[in-house]
């Protein structure tokens, strides 16, 4: 749902800041997807010291959680990058309306 919402904002909204928000929405949607993939019911958090592994304890799958960490970091950098670009565009083109910022076409 989040991903679809994000895509909607990126496609329709004219204001560049809104496109950036749309982008981060897509990213968070995908992150949630990753976390939810690793879930199996009833598992406890996969933190354990070395000696107390009991064969029957039932863990949530740790690998996707590691993936989400990196993906969140990447999402943050992308948003930071796009925002800095938007600021630059603002003072160069004087506007952040997508329709006006379109010198490169053809």
């Amino acid at each position: 749902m989040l991903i679809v919402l994000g895509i909607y904002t990126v496609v329709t909204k004219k204001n560049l800041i809104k496109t950036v928000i749309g982008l981060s929405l897509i990213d968070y949607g995908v992150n949630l997807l990753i976390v939810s993939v690793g879930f199996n019911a009833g598992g406890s958090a996969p933190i354990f010291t070395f000696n107390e592994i009991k064969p029957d304890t039932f863990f949530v799958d740790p690998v996707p959680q590691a993936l989400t960490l990196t993906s969140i970091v990447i999402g943050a950098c992308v948003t930071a990058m796009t925002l800095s670009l938007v600021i630059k565009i603002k003072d160069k083109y004087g506007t952040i309306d997508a329709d006006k910022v379109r010198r490169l076409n053809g």
Partner: protein
Amino acid sequence: MMQHYPVLSIIILFLGAFLNALFGGKSSIVRNIITFLSTGTSFLLILLLIKPIMLEGKVISYWMGNWIPVSDWAIGIGLEVDQLSLFFALLVSFTVFLSGIYSFKYMENDDTLDKYYVLYLMLSGGVMGFVLSGDIFNMFVMIEIFTFAAVALTAFRNYIEGALEAAFKYIVIGSIGSSFILAGTTLLYAQLHTLNMAQIAALMHKNYTPITLFSLGLMFTGYAVKSFIVPCHAAAPDAYMTAPSSISMLFSGMVNKAGVYGMIRLLYMLFQSINLPSMQILIIILGTITMFIGVTMALIQNDFKRLLAFHSISQIGYVITGIGLSTALGITGGLYHALNHTLFKGLLFLCAGAVFYSVGTTDLNKLGGLAKKMPHTALIFLIGAFSISGLPPFNGFVSKWLIYQSAYEEGFVIVTIIALLVSVLTLASFIKVTQSVFFGQLSKECENAKEVPIGMRIPMWIMAFMCFITGILPQYVTKYLITPAVSATLNIGKYIDAMLKDGYAEKYFKETVPVPNINYKLAGYWRPEYYLILFIIILLAFTLTVLAGGIDVNRRSIVSKEIEDYKYDTFYSGEKSEYSQVGGADLFWGLKYDFRKYFNFMHSAHSGVVNDYTLWIISTAAIVIAYIFLLVP
């Protein structure tokens, strides 16, 4: 020691980036040495790898932080180098090394150069990691790194008119593409609980579940965005145009090759779609559309680098069609064209950079007559233009020819016709560039154009020489480089054995597809040595007739220009020969006028608004997924 070469080559590049950030600020010599050393060593390591992998066909697998697979279930991130990835790694490291040398001189009148080299090394490290990694999430991270560096480098010269806008579009489109890939990877993980490519390939053998099909669709679109296939190519021309030439050379040499590599891995390794006719048709349709639209758009451009950008999109169309054919000959053609494309497209971008460096503008209408001022660049540009349009003694011809042959054998007649037509149109647009940039009248701006310094010319000469060599000796290039890579793509048994333990793959794969070694007798390609002998002998004959006094050459009175003698003015039917350059926009007006409906439509289609581009990508994603669900099973 062989085990550690792949990892070392990636780490060195990132180490170089890190060192540059630390010490780079002080002086340019330190910066240049660090860059030169890091790119050089990584190139050397890859070269050393050729012997074991390409010749003996060994496949090196390397487990990061030696998480060795436990009871044949891969846990850690594995690094996998087989012939195909080594082929692309070789391409990548070669272009990075040359572009590094080129940018020493090219970037010297730019400020904050240390940041340039940090980003530069990050970009090359990211692509190298992407090409060598054997784990799909690791590939995703590497994609993010090099897209990031690419965007920052596009906006490096922010005083150029469209740089920021191009960078913004590139990052919006790039990140949407990567989110698709990320979603696809996670779905795959949900289904198979492993991220390691070899293991996925083994488990996935022929049993498709709806989820994996959905992830195939997503990842396919993601990689399509990365390699700028037509529906999602809009960001590429802007990014190529505004980025400095040494970077746009990397773009066209590496970044879209990485996209193509991802596509090959996706189709041949993970989902083994070799024998699914429906997937083949999808790829070939996309490839042909990319070819056609790329060239037609290039015809009406009147900026040098933007024209080259559209050309690299259309050449990628060729490569994709070649690979989509999935016959041994087709893939050889596709891969060979990828190699050639990197060579001659890199060369052309370097020439564009040289023109920009000495004249300051790349607008075709303002330039003219540079051949007299910059003879070397003009000659190199001619070699590049001839090889891209596929004239026989140069390298473009061999690969295009293989693609035509295989496409026609597979029965895709329309594809062959379009491919041949596109190659003629490429020739047309390059004639346009040669006329308006290098020949013709000398325009005002280019009065003081001087030849490009030696530092930039060496890489250009090396590239031109490589173009010529791969054109003249196709058999050796294919025997050592491309046939092993093709056999790696087709039968992936060895890849899986190396990754896990031997015999693991036997459970799943019985047949291995034999790759016929293409001796050029079969391919009907005439041995180029005849061409060489002929060339020398004709020259011999030429000088002979002259010496025999048949032609009184001494009558050739090329009087220098000082004497204000009309004899050497160009013929203006009598008028004073004032400056009237025929070039740039007004060439081919006949063609443009004929197809103006088509060209106007294409012009308006590239509207430049970010939302339209994203709309395209989303629609292509929807079409691809719908297509896969309907047809594949």
